[in-house]
């Protein structure tokens, strides 16, 4: 059965959704509900119905996710199923606007029921992002405060870097350059790198920090630090030419200012 589950997920990843459904259903049918693999198959089946293309079956997915939640009350998969239900409210069809209030309530349910679970941190992140998309200053300021509290109380959150990055977005919207720079640096410092992905590096983050420091904060020291890091750590990056130009520009400007020009 473990093999069947692995194959079902493999089919899902390949986009062979019919095959995935058949395999997940096979496991569900063959195993007793007391077997933990029954629940895993049910979760896989719900996920496939929700996200299969081109004909997702959200109704069926909702029913199945609710079965997982009912069977697993405090368990891992229940948390992910509850988050999946919230995501379905947030990710609406093309041409529709999400009902953000409904999505926020659904995210809140994950947060309330599984406060320490990874899915809950993810739910919080998505929930807070819904307050930021409107660029409303009052709403963004309130989000910033909530993010500060969350980060302070969850310093080990697996989503810490993304939380800092969202905080940075809030500061950008609110026009608070110093806080923006601080949040951007923290997002960078807490980010993790996947050693298997050659396309992922921190060159972009380094560039962002340097340019925010130079053009928004006027903090040449920080800008110099991060431009230099970009040049040294990512010598083949497309932004290296611009980083070197930035270092030269700042040096020349500093000289001009000192000369009183």
């Amino acid at each position, binding site marked *: 059965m473990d093999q069947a589950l692995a194959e079902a997920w493999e089919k899902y*990843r390949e986009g062979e959704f019919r095959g995935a459904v058949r395999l997940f259903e096979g496991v569900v049918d063959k195993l007793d509900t007391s077997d933990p693999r029954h629940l895993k198959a049910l979760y896989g089946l719900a996920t496939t119905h929700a996200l299969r*293309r081109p004909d997702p079956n959200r109704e069926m997915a909702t029913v199945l996710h609710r079965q997982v939640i009912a069977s697993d009350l405090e368990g891992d998969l229940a948390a992910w199923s509850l988050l999946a239900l919230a995501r379905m409210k947030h990710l609406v069809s093309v041409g529709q606007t999400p009902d953000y209030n409904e999505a926020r309530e659904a995210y809140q349910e994950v947060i309330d029921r599984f406060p320490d679970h990874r899915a809950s941190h993810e739910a919080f992140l998505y929930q807070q992002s819904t307050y930021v998309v409107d660029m409303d200053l009052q709403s963004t300021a309130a989000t910033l405060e909530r993010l500060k509290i969350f980060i302070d109380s969850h310093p080990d959150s697996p989503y810490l870097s993304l939380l800092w990055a969202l905080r940075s977005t809030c500061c950008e919207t609110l026009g608070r350059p110093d806080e923006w720079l601080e949040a951007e640096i923290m997002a960078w410092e807490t980010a993790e790198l996947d050693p298997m992905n050659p*396309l992922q590096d921190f060159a972009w983050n380094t560039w962002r920090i340097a340019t925010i420091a130079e*053009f928004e904060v006027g903090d040449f020291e920080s800008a110099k630090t991060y431009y230099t890091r970009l040049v040294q750590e990512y010598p083949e990056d497309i932004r290296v030419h611009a980083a070197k130009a930035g270092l030269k520009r700042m040096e020349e400007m500093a000289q001009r200012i000192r000369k009183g020009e």
Partner: protein
Amino acid sequence: MVIAMRRSEETEPGVITLRFGHWQLEASVREAIDEMAADYRKIHPNVRIIQDAIPEMTYGQWLTTQLMGGTAPDMIEVGMVQYHLLVQYLNRYFLPLSRYVGAPNPYNEGTPLEGVPLRNTFKDGMRSSYYEEVQAYMIIPLSQFGIRIFYNKDLLKRLTGREDPPTEYRDFLAVCEEIKRHKDPTGQPYTPIASSKYHLPMWEYPLLDPLTYPLLREADFNRDGFVGNDELFVAIKTGRIHFRHPAIEARFRMLDELSDHFQPGYTGLGRDEAVFLFAQQKAVFMTTGTWDAWSLQEQAQGSFSVGVMDYPRPVPEDPVYGDLVEGPNYERMYGGFPIGITRTCKHPDVALDFLLFLAGKEQNEKLNGIIGWIPSVKHTELDEFLKAFQPHLQGVYGCFNPNLGGETWIRWLQLYSLYQVKKISFDELVARFEPFYIERGMTDFLEQQKDWRRGMHNNEQVLAGLRASALHSDGDEAQSYWVRYKTLLGSRQLWAEIGHARQMKMVMGELELPERGPYEYKEATLQRIRKHILGEAG
């Protein structure tokens, strides 16, 4: 009735026959693969490699039918279909190679690459092998490519008296003028530059487009170091920049100047016509890539010498372009000749071993040496002729992409075609396109937003798959999946939604544009800089 299948026909008892499909019809490629297969057979006598060389024009259709019909070769060159299809094909029909990229290539034993993880043995670090959408390494890149200007050394000397080609733009134009003043044996003026619709992008990308780099300062709203087509639209729609921006105008002016030296009607000509003109010694310069290096030398053999030169950029003192040229064009190391292993392959371990053989330092050098291409593996020697193709790893790049798709793009292509043949001036191009772009572009921009929304559903699908992988694994493997999961979640779901919302508000006039461009000093920042520096000095 007996249906004889080629595959079974050619399989002898105990012999493993692997098919290798590609679109490289150049004789040297087939010869090189045959020779490498023969070398491989010396150490693996039971393995035979058969090539399926398919013309470029039909390759995409052939690939699709072969993959869908389950009859695809065991190893196959990946490409010639639209990117979104390619991703689907990779996902469905190809074997991921991720588990092998961290291990050393056994064929590198006894070389400086012995013990080095496979991905670190490639010049591009296997960036070209990794597909974000699949979250896996999918192909082995066997060669590298680059583009430069090829020139006829003998003709250049005969017509201009120069031993060396011009390295600077004004000098290049002067040489072209000089060439045009001479007539060939048939009494026709020589053509300075052999061009065609195939060759034009090889002037645009390295020489013309980098002139638009200054747009970055004003329109890179998300500070990623690029100006996307959406950002350009926002910038123009909001009046932050105009089509008459000096950088844009310069790009078109330079095309006008260069195309004066192309043969007449070049936009209606194809690759072969331009190559013919060059090979017949009726033109001095032609831009193309390493893939043509060997065949051009072959065609020139006994008649003339072929040289390779870099693009002649304007110098900083240039009266027109000097202020806009900030450096050479940026070129990234990127592997080509990408070969994947299909899921229908009966002997994937053997296919992988053959690809590792081709990717071994010495073998990759030999393979590319025969073809006349640049090896993709580090520490390899390359032909003296190809040294001019060493990429510029620092430089600038184009920031002008008006392609919003839909009718906007069609209108652009129509008008740009007229501009290329000098039927309309730059002023007319702008007058006829800019208002259309601003109005009709909005519809296409909104359509792009829908595409992005559709993409979010696909991303969600990938995320759920990654999450399942993370939940079903442990230790470093689980950690790696979670990192990938969070990276994708951030870049594709969170920031994309916020970024698009911000763009929409700017375009709709609901969000005020920042006082200055992202890489321009605001007055308040300047004051802080002064205060900080003077305070520091004091």
